């Protein structure tokens, strides 16, 4: 009844920071991060020891706060010396260099790289930074790979819960189907197993077959998702939520009842094909890219039209059944792929890992980041994961703190941190626009 429109403090703070660093290209930030990561690799361990932090802290020392609050000064020193100073130093250096050599040939050459190439270049850069950061501990590596999986899950869920405006809770069920299908395929093909017999193919092929197994897993998941997609033609909203809930329980219960899948005991022996960060990183990038493409295309935007007013969408030539189908099946496909990745990262799955709690966790990430936002999903997942890892020392209390944080965020920003908006990269947009004009000028239609 009453209107609540609060221009948030977050927005203005974000705006101020953005204004301050608007002209810094992403690459400069990445150089900054790389600098921080390298400094950490060089002196991190020694400095941490000197400051009494013990071993190199996994998450910037933040989680140590909850172990021993007296360490706070040391942690602040550590963060400033190891991360902030090198990063800012590098950023300013790049800025200065750009200014100094403005118009120089090499700079002009960089500026001529097409946008797509530029993005690939930056993504590679991101990967390098993450790679070095994860090099120092297996724990970080594991968290990063799971983060990738969660990003795929959150974004694919956003397609249905955000762009489509439904409330799906079956994400963990989709994940389970993908995890089991891909695991069975890989174990059958490449592992000498008690249940599935000797390996069918040489083990060396496993890494190359893995993508195929994931795609098959995704496809099978999408097929099972018809159980959810078809009812969506007739009903909307809450009932669909229940149907997805029933789907989740059915999947879980089915697995428990299928003997060769190990039932409730679980399933293991997955070949180690997702141990490298690169594999997960590439899949994550692919998923984000594909889904981003879809939701920014006019064809994909019709999903939001179905959400906002279905009869009007139908009248305006939108095939609403097809749109719903695509949204659900895409959601299911990528959740299945993510499940497959998850199974091979963890190397052990059981029905218990794909319960309602998993769905609730992904929902939490999604709504924290905000609906209808690709960057929001990524941000929400990263923040949630970071928070979860940082609060790990609190043990049980963590699961009282995280809900409280989420409740507060929901009350303050009911649409999540980035609901219905994207983090814009003005630098990139300017670039793309300039390119558009150049490429389009001669055509002149």
């Amino acid at each position, binding site marked *: *009844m009453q*209107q609540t429109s609060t221009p948030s403090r977050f927005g203005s703070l974000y705006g101020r920071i953005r204004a301050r660093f608007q002209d810094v290209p992403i690459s400069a930030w990445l150089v900054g991060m790389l600098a921080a990561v390298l400094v950490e690799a060089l002196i991190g361990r020694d400095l941490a020891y000197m400051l009494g932090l013990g071993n190199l802290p996994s998450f910037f020392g933040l989680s140590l706060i909850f172990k021993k609050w007296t360490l706070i000064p040391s942690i602040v020193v550590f963060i400033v010396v190891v991360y902030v100073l090198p990063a800012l130093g590098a950023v300013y250096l790049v800025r200065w260099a750009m200014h100094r050599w403005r118009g120089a040939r090499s700079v002009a050459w960089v500026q001529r790289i097409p946008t797509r190439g530029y993005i690939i270049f930056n993504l590679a850069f991101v990967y390098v930074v993450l790679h070095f950061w994860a090099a120092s501990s297996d724990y970080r590596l594991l968290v990063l790979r799971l983060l990738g999986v969660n990003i795929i899950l959150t974004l694919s869920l956003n397609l249905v819960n955000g762009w489509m405006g439904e409330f799906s809770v079956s994400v963990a069920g989709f994940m389970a189907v993908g995890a089991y299908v891909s695991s069975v395929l890989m174990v059958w093909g490449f592992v000498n197993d008690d249940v599935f017999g000797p390996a069918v193919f040489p083990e060396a092929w496993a890494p190359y077959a893995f993508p195929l197994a994931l795609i098959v897993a995704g496809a099978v998941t999408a097929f099972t998702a018809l159980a959810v997609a078809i009812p969506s033609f007739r009903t909307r909203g809450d009932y669909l939520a229940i149907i997805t809930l029933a789907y989740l329980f059915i999947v879980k219960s089915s697995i428990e009842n299928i003997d060769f899948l190990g039932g409730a005991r679980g399933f293991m022996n997955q070949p180690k094909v997702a141990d490298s960060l690169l594999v997960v990183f590439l899949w994550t990038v692919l998923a984000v890219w594909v889904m981003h493409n879809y939701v920014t295309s006019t064809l994909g935007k019709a999903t939001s039209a179905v959400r906002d007013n279905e009869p009007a969408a139908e009248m305006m030539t939108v095939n609403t059944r097809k749109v719903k189908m695509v949204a659900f099946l895409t959601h299911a496909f990528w959740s299945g792929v993510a499940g497959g990745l998850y199974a091979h990262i963890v190397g052990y799955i059981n029905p218990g890992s794909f319960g309602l709690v998993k769905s609730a966790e992904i929902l939490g990430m999604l709504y924290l980041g905000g609906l209808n936002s690709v960057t929001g999903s990524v941000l929400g997942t990263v923040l949630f994961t970071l928070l979860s890892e940082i609060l790990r020392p609190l043990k049980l209390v963590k699961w009282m703190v995280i809900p409280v944080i989420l409740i507060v965020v929901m009350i303050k920003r009911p649409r999540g941190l980035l609901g219905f908006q994207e983090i814009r990269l003005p630098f990139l947009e300017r670039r793309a626009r300039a390119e558009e004009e150049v490429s389009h000028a001669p055509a002149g239609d």
Partner: protein
Amino acid sequence: MAAERTPQLVVENLEVYYGAIKALHGISFHVYPGEIVTIIGANGAGKTSTLRAISRLVKVGPETRMTFEGHDLLAYPPHKVVSELGISHVPEGRRLFGNLTVWENLQLATFARKDPPEVIQRDFDMVFDLFPRLAERRNQRAGTMSGGEQQMLAVARALITARRMMLLDEPSMGLAPKLMQEMFEALKEINKEGTTILLVEQNANMALRFAQRGYVLETGNLVLEGPSQDLLANPRVKEAYLGG
């Protein structure tokens, strides 16, 4: 004629926003006790918003002042505007509780009243007297009645909740001309018993013949006001609202 009386309802600088859209741009008007006043205007001009603002169902702008019999309206939550100040509201589209019977709809309207049962009973009698058809249908579900009967119930329900002032939002909507006539007769009756009436209507002709004074609302601004006869004779009103 009303110069020395003090107004019962004073609205000053009423502003209403829906998100970024401004529905009312700071309108001011007043209603004297016992009067029938109408606000006419096109659909979307802000008539409904005006009534909803008085009933405190929508947020108003920071400059808005509203008093009712000397009380600051803005200090009252919506249900107390009804139960403590005595302003009832017949909303647009009637908004009856279709799953409740006629009698239950009326019974619910007594929720906040602290009067003894016999007083309430007298009100019920009065209402059934006014609209005998409701008495016949007291056990029928409100949702299954015809449009005209529903409109009677909506007015009856408002009469039971409170009767110092009644806000009426398009009571003629969807009524056949004959029923409309009956409805306005009944409203006249109610007014005679001492209830001030503020009426919002698209059917300007009907409204102006019924009311003593009128205001003309266009896209969130009051553009004309005056005694009904003057408005009925006004060429601009004629052209715009009375079908030329």
